[in-house]
């Protein structure tokens, strides 16, 4: 696989998208392979959506404080990162490519997990504990659809998986490593734009089932507040709708179709606001919600 990566011949699927990836950064190749060990590699002649390279910066910066660049089709849309941050740069860059191009879907800024055929969307702004809660549920055996993208298919209103490494930040890192030590975790990246980052690797089962969509059942808007007492309030559909409009990456681009799909989503789902100060309590609340009101 390392050879394929060096020769830009590594093709893989991530949810509905196919990527051709190349890299001459060995530490990146190693982390990528640990994170996506259970992915099936596609034949090299597959036609891919995105051709991406994660490469050492040439010139003086190859030797002096080495840097890494993210290329999509030979273009470099971002400033370089320090060489040892190649993996977070790749994850972030591929998310950017998807967000800029996948306008045939409605994209929510949301984690999505699934259990017993019920998908739960966790739409939230950065800093609200979305990734932490998502990773904790995955630690309890929920299927990871996505940590970042709720990809809603207009045709049937189901969520498509996009299982990827989920970045945990700062205080969430030890919290999760204690809560679910059996999960796979990547190396620590110190002082990124978002502070210290450690990725939770997607479980093998989630990767294996990345072609299986899931029916939405609950929309839960999480908000972490230190020391808060757990609260789970039902949200009327019109409130959920308004919040999702502002949460979507491409609601306006999607036009009338986006409106119809969001209406369908809030009609099909029960919506809640979740305020929590303790991760175990939040996980327990969602598990009992699923037991009582799931399908």
């Amino acid at each position, binding site marked *: 696989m390392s050879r394929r990566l060096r020769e830009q011949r590594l093709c893989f699927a991530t949810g509905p998208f196919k990527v051709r990836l190349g890299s001459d950064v060995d530490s990146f190749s190693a982390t990528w392979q640990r994170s996506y060990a259970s992915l099936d590699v596609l034949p090299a002649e597959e036609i891919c959506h995105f051709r991406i390279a994660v490469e050492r910066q040439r010139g003086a910066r190859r030797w002096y404080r080495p840097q890494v660049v993210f290329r999509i089709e*030979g273009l470099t849309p971002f400033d370089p990162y320090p060489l040892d941050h190649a993996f977070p740069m790749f994850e972030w860059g591929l998310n950017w490519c998807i967000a800029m191009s996948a*306008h*045939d879907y409605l994209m929510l800024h949301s984690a999505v997990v699934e259990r017993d055929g019920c998908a739960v969307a966790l739409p939230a702004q950065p800093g609200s504990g979305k990734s932490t809660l998502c990773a904790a549920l995955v630690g309890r055996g929920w299927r990871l659809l996505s940590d970042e993208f709720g990809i809603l298919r207009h045709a049937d209103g189901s969520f498509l998986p996009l299982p990827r490494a989920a970045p945990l930040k700062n205080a969430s890192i030890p919290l999760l490593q204690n809560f679910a030590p059996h999960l796979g975790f990547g190396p620590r990246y110190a002082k990124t734009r978002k502070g210290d980052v450690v990725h939770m690797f997607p479980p093998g089962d989630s990767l294996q089932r990345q072609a299986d969509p899931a029916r939405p059942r609950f929309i839960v808007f999480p908000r972490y507040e230190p020391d808060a007492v757990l609260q789970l309030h039902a949200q009327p559909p019109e409130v959920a709708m308004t919040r999702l409009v502002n949460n979507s990456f491409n609601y306006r681009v999607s036009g009338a179709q986006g409106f119809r799909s969001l209406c369908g989503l809030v009609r099909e789902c029960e919506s809640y606001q979740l305020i929590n100060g303790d991760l175990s309590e939040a996980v327990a609340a969602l598990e009992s919600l699923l037991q009582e009101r799931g399908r």
Partner: protein
Amino acid sequence: MNTLIAVLRNPNCAREFSPSQWEALLGEGRRTRMLARLHHLLAQKVPDLDLPVAVRDVLSGHARYVAHMHVLVRSELRRLGKLAAQVDYPVILLKGAAYLMAELPFAAGRGLSDIDVLVPRHALQDFEQRLRDVGWEFDPNLTAYDNQYYRQWSHELPPMRHSDCSLELDVHHNLIQVTSRSALDVAPVIERSTRVAGTPFYVLAPTDRVLHSALHLVMSDELRGGIRDLYDIHAACLHGAARDANFWPDLLAHGRTLGLLRPLYYCLSLAGDIFGLEPPDTVWRAVRAARPAYPVDRFMSTLMRWHLVPQVDQPWRAASAEQLLYLRSHWVRMPPGLLLRHLVRKGGWWVRGDSTASGGALSAR
């Protein structure tokens, strides 16, 4: 660049594409910002062709985004239209916004992120004031030097923004920098512009549209996506010639009186080479007579070709062509004294190495 050009010339050739050619097309389309254009071209010309899933997804995703930009532009034009209806001088839409308003077929899938308008110089102050009255404003971080650069030497006001609008508005009073050696008398262009039926806006005559694009392609420092602009010129010529038997002779006549035969020559010759554009013989001979001396002609044509049609195995060609064309764009737009002052002021781009990154550090923007 070969697959993109092949599809633009003859969309039917996509029927025979191998997987690696499809991938090459996606790469070339993205680098030249023509993915949405390709979506419409293939849907119109080879509607029965089943595109590979990844190709279909990427093209239609970008086409949706561009369609959304068009909605934004149209709604902004409705607001600007109220303003344009109140004044007694023509407010002329340029480039993308004009193609949309005039409903030209090649507007479909053409991306745009700003609205360009042209007003007569004597009306510039009035129009600027009216825009400011309804909330358009200049970048508050604009330096005094940049402001002076625009006001004194440029052919446009500094870009304007509005808090309700994600688009930038560029207000021009000429088609080319006023300090250019080939300074342009824009009066006949304004004279020939026509009102778009049912709107308060004017657009350039079809011949002037081609001349403006040619000028832009040959003089501009915004080099990326040059093949898209050349394709616009090609499409605008075909469209103009199909509507009006006098299009070609008029293009020659207007190019001559405006002193723009040289840029027209470069563009028609490149569009001929690359897209197979064939102007009538008499017109082409007369335009060709305006070419520079043989070595200059060879040099410029080669540079522009290297830049417009970069070969993957020779990236240095495109890179050096870009650097040289970028320098040339400044050389032709400013007399040496002014250029020297501007260089001193904006200098250091070769140290930062960002000359071609984003419109360039040399220009005031």
